[in-house]
Structures are given as C-alpha cells and as structure tokens.
C-alpha cells in the first residue's frame, strides 16, 4: 500500500495534532521524529508527500531536503515536499521545496495545501 504522507517533525504534540487532522481527512500518515535517519525513512517509505520541519535535531530539514533532491533515484528525488518553518521562507528553501508553510499555521491551511499537493 502506498503511503500518502511521511511527516518528519520533532515536536510530538504538533505531530499528533497533524496526524489527527490529516488522518480525519483520510490520508495515511507516518511520523519520523528526528533529522537523523530522515532521508532513510523517506527512501524506505517512498511516500507521495513529505511534510518536513526545518528545525530538526541532528540534521536540519534543509539538509534532508538537499539529500532528497540529489538522490540518484529520480522518482524519489522528485517527491513533493511541504516544508514547515518558524523562521520565514528563504530563496534557497523556496527553490528546493514544493511549498512552504509558516508556523504557527491554521489547520485548514495545512489541509488545503495537502489536498492540493496530493490531488
């Protein structure tokens, strides 16, 4: 079965709320709580969408995104990524990620963004 969303987020309460919101919309979601092993988790799960926090322990979301975009598996490298950031959007981030959502976000904005990206 194809996984809809892999979310890499180290804040358990944010992850839990997002899991509930998107799960209620019918999306299959898996969580990974650390920057370390983030790219391996993506390679293993091969999700349709990655929701990636920017500020992660051990390895930042930007580094994981760069790893993903340079993956030799072209299909995996093209996986859509929705970046969550509390630090504002940088040109580098905008160029690499498919969409960027600032923290704190409205649940409906997150749901709409995910719907668009998985349509």
């Amino acid at each position: 079965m194809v996984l809809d969303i892999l979310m890499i987020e180290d804040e358990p309460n944010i992850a839990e709320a997002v899991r509930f919101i998107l799960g209620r919309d019918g999306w299959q979601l898996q969580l990974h709580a650390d920057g370390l092993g983030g790219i391996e988790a993506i390679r293993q799960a091969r999700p349709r969408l990655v929701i990636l926090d920017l500020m992660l322990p051990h390895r930042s979301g930007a580094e994981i995104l760069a790893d993903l975009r340079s993956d030799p598996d072209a299909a995996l490298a093209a996986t859509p990524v929705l970046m969550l950031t509390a630090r504002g959007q940088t040109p580098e981030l905008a160029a690499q990620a498919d969409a960027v959502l600032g923290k704190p976000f409205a649940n409906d904005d997150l749901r709409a963004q995910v719907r668009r990206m998985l349509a």
Partner: protein
Amino acid sequence: MSSRGPTHVLTGTRIRERRLSLSRRQADVARAAGISPAYLNLIEHNRRPVGEDLVQRLAEVLEVPSDELAEGREEARIAALREAAARLPDAARGLSPELEQAPEFLARFPGWAAVLVASARRSEALERQLVALSDRMTQDPYLLTTLHEVLSAVTSLRSTASILAEGSEIPEDWRQRFHANLNEDSLRLSNMAQALVKYLDSFETDGAIFTPQEEVEAWMAAGTPPVEGSGDLASDAARLLARVHLERIAEERATLPDEELAAVAGDERDPLRIAAELRQPLDLVMRRLAQLGRAGFERAGLLVCDGSGALTLRRPAPGFPLPRPGDACPLWPLYQALAAPQTAMSHLVITPEGRRFATLSYATRRQPGGTGGPVLTQAQMLILPAETAAASPALPAIPIGPSCRICPRTVCAARREPSILRGS
C-alpha cells in the same frame, strides 16, 4: 590672525556676535567693560588676545555666562562638530560640510551648534544600542533557541485548540490526549515566557556581557587578577578561559619580566628592534608589550586569532572598533599575516570615525603533534594609536571597520553582508 591660534579668534567673534545680537554699540560695551572702543574693536576682529578677567567683564556686560565667550570649551565643541560631520549618514555624504568654518559656525550660532552635536551624540548612542541588540538577536543562541521553542509550542497549541473548538466528533481517547497536550504546551509556554522576560530585562544593562570570552575580557580589563580570582566568573567556560589566559601571562612574564622589557622599550619603540635587542621571539615581545601598560605602550591593544580567523584574544586599544565575538573586519591586517607566517607586517589603518592606528601583525606556525601532526597557525596584531607609534608606515591607511554588519562604509571590496547602520 594672532599667533595664539584659532581659539581666541573664536572668542573675539563670539563677543562681537553677542554684542550685535543685543543691538549694543561697541563704544557702550567697551566703556562698561573698562576698555577703549578701539581695543574692543581689535578684540572683536580677533586681532588681540583676551585675558580671563576681561572675558569675565565682557560676559557680565553682555549678560552671558563667561564660558560662553571664553576659550577652552570651544576646542572641544569644534572637535565635537567635526566628529558630527565625520559621522554623516551616507545619504548626506555629498553635502561636503564646510569643516574649516566650524569655528565660525560655533561662534555665530552656539545654540544650533549645540543642537547638532547633541543630535550626533544621540545618534551615536542609538547606533551602539542598535548594534548591541542586533548582536543579541542574530547571534545569541539562547534567544534563537528559545524563540523557536515558543513558536513550536504556539503551533501545537493553535492546532490542538482548533481541533477541540471545531465541535465535531472526537474520539474520547484523542480528546483526552489533546487536553493533556494543551496543558503541557501552555505550561511550557508560560515557563518560556517568564524566562524570556527575565533574559530580555538584562538587555537594559548597557554593554551586558553574554559570552564566556566577553566575560573574561571584561574581567581581565578590570586589572590583573590572580588565577584563583577566576572563581568570581559566572560560567565554567569563562573560568577555564581565564585560567588558561592568566597562566600563559604568568609564564610569559617570567620569561620576559616587566622591568627588563620596560628598560628597552623606554628607548626603542620598534617591537622588532626590541625583540632583537632582548633576543626574544617577536610574538612574545608583542604580547608582552600589550601587557606592559607603560613605557609608551599604555594605550596598546592586541588581537590574536587562530588559523580559522577566530579571535582568541581581544584586548582592544581605546577607540579601535571591536565587534562582538564571532565577527570581525576582513581588512584587518591581522588576517593578511595569516597568509605570510614569520613576516612582520606594518600597516596604518583608519576607522570609520577617522581614528588612525599603527598596527604590527605577525603570524607563527607550530606542530605540537610532531611531524605528522596538524600545522597550527596563530596571528597577532599589536595596535597603537598612530601618534604614539614608533613610525607611521609610508603606505596609505587601510580603511577598516568592526565587522560588515555594523560598519558604515558602503564602498568596500571586502563587504560580505549589508550594514544595519546605513541600509547599504
């Protein structure tokens, strides 16, 4: 013009301006002050010196405090006016203020001159405050981490509260979990807010110390405390740094005692010649001269950096612009020395405020790990006010700054980021 120079020229002009502002005749004022109209005329045209007693009498006649007319304060005021002009914002750079007429401006419009100087000083104070706050906001890891934590807690609170507020069916186990999360996040947010307020309150302390290096620098600048005194420092890192610094100072002082160094430095100001005469390494002599604090080196500063360019010791010379730790000007000759070890480099530098310093930079290399070990480079720069240095280098002064972010120079080949001071 009299041989006494421009200060009493000003006094004469100020006397004349004050008299004219009161619409009083020269003869009346002269008579009231007990001098002849012809002598007052010469004074007003700056062709005769004015003694203290006469200034006092004229001030009484002209109903003005004597120091408004007298010499002394004027030089300082003219210097303040020139400094205000030197600190012009870039947008006004093309205005070319008539610096040579600053004395005349001060004499004719003392009130406006005072306003201009006060505005320039306030601007300078605000710049200093801005730099300090900007440093904190952009470099302070505690602040950055805490703000990130606050945003994370707020994000969680907002999402969770929205879910509960929607009113739709929520399974009981999820509802309980969300309530627990709300409680946990609100408690976390409350603690962080209190910690942040306490931390931000410390910003009010002007020039507050916040890194171990700054703490040690301030502690050492307060005197030459004993190694055991390092227990007064706030952090373990600062205490360790202090102990390392002080132990090295003690070792170097034992190798080259103050009296021995002062005896040579009193006659010879060139550090290379001092080193040759004392048969000691130049880098040791430079560090010891900065420590000596006498024999012409009272206002000496010293910067030391490692091979990465990180400053490991900052003992500023008065007026030399230093940024907070972790930042520096790439044009400091210190960094040129890194590229040419064992070569003493003498440069004249000029700060954005127009202060000139003679610098001597020198780098050394060592391999403490043996032949196969890493090569460690260290550079140091001895800084002396240009007027106290042995000889000013023949080359033009290098325009330097503190660091790009807080440097007002817009045209600089080495600029790596815009300045927060001038919107460059």
